[in-house]
């Protein structure tokens, strides 16, 4: 079979697998977050946490619960890293430096998983397991909880209640993330991903040298890292490391896992708002944009543009032989279309336009399909904007799902879509203006700008992948990217929960002949266009100076 045919078949099988599971999984999630029944173990958790599980919260209370939980999460993760040398399973690792510890704590709690450190030489097993992997679960659960609260805003009428954060959080873990992670981890173990508590083995190689073979509880972390669209690797090379991505099929399985929940959530949305066609429309936009992007990255890598790449004959710098180009390109696109950021190849060495497409994926705001939860609520905000644009064209008050979108609603939506572009562009501009920002670049010229732009796009959108030539473990980048991650995660959550609160309080206007239908292909096209135009107008100048200048 030719490489191209195998690449297409790979993509086709992935799409088929996702198509099969998205309906039962989406329905399952709708049931999880609407049933009044608690499991016995959940009741025990609620009692211990000290919350009344049957009382729902207003949006400000829901928000404060999210923020309190995240704040405490950052503090514990920071503390764990700072005292790891006194904890068990430290494998002789020293305390993590304060700047790096802050950056990493924020990074994992915000579902970004940007890594300024190198896993195998920085973190002991306990910090990986009880610190980083725990936040892999929890940051994903928080994202799902917020998305569900936002769906309730659209689904409910004349209420000031959006659900109970602690209940949503618990159920996201007990009924979704934990069971799926157990299955995912065991499948990966069968594929060769390591899972042990050893500190590594000393080997005497065939050529008579010595080599360190690392150990670690990798599979358990790898499963939730993909499933929760987190992306932080146990080892520095992330899923390109043979112990994280031992075979091609394991790598494809990881792509499946990281797309699984984000692509099932539109179904959940359709079920919860009582009109499955609305979910299909959102899924259609996500799938269309994602497929186009995967196609582009694959094509650009196959063309192998660039002087060095042409000399090699193929874009294999920073790629593994067992994966080959098509699977590497598929992984790179999927990881940046979601907020995952794990990699099975090194994006910095991608062709200018291939790497530029991957960068543009994050700039889309990670809505196609985006991170677990955050992708859906991001896309719903863009749907609100799309309906508003359509309303302007025909001179009607815009409505989405029978909710009127007035001045206050549009203000919140507009601020939402401005937040990350502001962080990315201002952040990258500051980095290029300061010597501390420029000194960290590995490559020069337009590719150097791409490295800084990529870093802030990754942090602001909570992705976490990198053009890893950038030396990011410096006071400037640890601080600036840490701030970009915090603001990029929580400001949108504040705005979108406020929006959900306003929507839930409204009644529902009747569908009339003048209502713009939001389940038809016309809306799918309009929403796709809005996503692309918003991104295009915002980022085109920066992209022209970076990847486009290098690649054209």
């Amino acid at each position, binding site marked *: 079979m030719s490489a191209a045919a195998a690449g297409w078949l790979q993509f086709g099988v992935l799409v088929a697998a996702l198509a099969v599971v998205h309906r039962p999984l989406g329905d399952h999630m709708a049931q999880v977050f609407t049933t009044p029944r608690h499991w016995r173990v959940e009741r025990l958790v609620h009692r211990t946490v000290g919350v009344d599980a049957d009382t729902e919260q207003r949006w400000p209370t829901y928000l404060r619960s999210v923020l309190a939980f995240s704040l405490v999460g950052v503090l514990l993760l920071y503390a764990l890293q700072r005292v790891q040398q006194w904890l068990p399973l430290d494998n002789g690792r020293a305390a993590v430096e304060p700047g790096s510890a802050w950056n990493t704590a924020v990074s994992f709690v915000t579902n970004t998983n940007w890594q300024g450190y190198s896993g195998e030489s920085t973190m002991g097993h306990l910090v990986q397991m009880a610190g980083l992997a725990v936040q892999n679960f929890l940051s994903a659960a928080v994202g799902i909880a917020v998305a569900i609260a936002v769906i309730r805003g659209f689904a409910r009428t004349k209420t000031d209640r959006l659900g109970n954060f602690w209940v949503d959080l618990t159920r996201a873990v007990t009924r979704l993330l934990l069971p799926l992670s157990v299955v995912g981890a065991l499948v990966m173990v069968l594929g060769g991903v390591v899972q042990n508590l050893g500190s590594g083995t000393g080997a005497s190689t065939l050529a008579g040298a010595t080599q360190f073979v*690392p150990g670690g509880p990798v599979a358990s972390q790898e499963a939730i890292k993909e499933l929760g669209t987190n992306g932080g690797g146990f080892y520095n090379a992330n899923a390109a490391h043979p112990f994280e991505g031992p075979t091609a099929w394991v790598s494809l399985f990881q792509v499946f896992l990281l797309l699984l929940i984000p692509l099932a959530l539109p179904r959940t949305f359709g079920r919860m708002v009582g009109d499955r066609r609305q979910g299909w429309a959102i899924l259609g936009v996500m799938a269309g944009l994602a497929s186009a992007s995967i196609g582009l990255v694959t094509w650009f890598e196959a063309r192998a543009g660039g002087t060095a790449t042409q*000399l090699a004959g193929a874009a294999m710098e920073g790629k593994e032989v067992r994966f080959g180009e098509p699977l590497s390109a598929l992984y790179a696109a999927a990881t940046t279309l979601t907020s995952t950021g794990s990699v099975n190849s*090194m994006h910095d060495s991608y062709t*200018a336009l291939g790497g530029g497409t991957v960068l543009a994926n994050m700039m889309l705001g990670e809505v196609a399909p985006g991170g677990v939860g955050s992708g859906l609520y991001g896309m719903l905000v863009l749907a609100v904007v799309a309906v508003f644009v359509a309303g302007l064209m025909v001179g009607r008050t815009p409505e989405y799902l029978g909710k009127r979108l007035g001045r206050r609603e549009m203000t919140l939506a507009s601020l939402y879509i401005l937040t990350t572009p502001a962080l990315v562009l201002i952040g990258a501009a500051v980095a290029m203006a300061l010597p501390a920002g420029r000194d960290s670049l590995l490559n020069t010229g337009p590719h150097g700008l791409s490295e800084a732009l990529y870093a802030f796009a990754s942090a602001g959108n909570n992705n976490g992948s990198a053009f890893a030539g950038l030396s990011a473990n410096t006071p400037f980048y640890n601080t600036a990217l840490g701030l970009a991650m915090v603001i990029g995660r929580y400001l949108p959550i504040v705005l979108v929960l406020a929006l959900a609160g306003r929507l839930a309080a409204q009644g529902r206007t009747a569908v009339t002949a003048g209502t713009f239908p939001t389940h038809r292909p016309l809306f799918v096209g309009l929403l796709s266009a809005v996503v692309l135009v918003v991104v295009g107008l915002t980022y085109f100048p920066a992209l022209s100076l970076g990847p486009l200048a290098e690649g054209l």
Partner: protein
Amino acid sequence: MSAPLLLSGRQLGAAVRALLIATVVLGVAYPLLITGAAQLIAPGRADGSLVEVDGQVAGSSLIGQAFTDADGAPLPQYFQPRPSASGYDGAASGGSNLGPNSAELADLIVQRRAEVAQFNGVDPADVPADAVTASASGLDPHISPEYAEIQIDRVAAARDLPASEMAALVAEYSSGRDAGFIGAPHVNVVELNLALDRLSRAR
């Protein structure tokens, strides 16, 4: 409406308790459960697919090794792996991260192509891309079938073994795409070289 961003002590208390429960269940019980299950269903793989020579751990079949002498010169009796940004240091995985138009990378590729062609006595045009580019992990245990192919005569000569026997061995340690369509064809250099040593010792 109360100020939405003001956190109360009650909420922080609930957050602390929820986090502690999560840390015990998700951070300790879950990884231990998976470790136990992994050691049960696939102990060798869970421990890193280690390979042994005379009862001594000689590495992992998944982790590439350097087959060079003390000065870093490639040993002709072994199939050579890809270039590695980390020199196959198992404690420092990673790629070069050099960009597609990097002059440094271009120079490296030209130099590697000349060296590989000379070392194996082949035309520089026959040197495949994976032989002149560094992998993502720095620990890639595989090479392309094309790169294995151009090394057969050189290894056969160094070991004084017939090239046909060498080609059969390469075929044995070659894999196609997973399930016929996932990933790319590859040859495991660590396993191949292990088998070579066994063969030579048996003679």
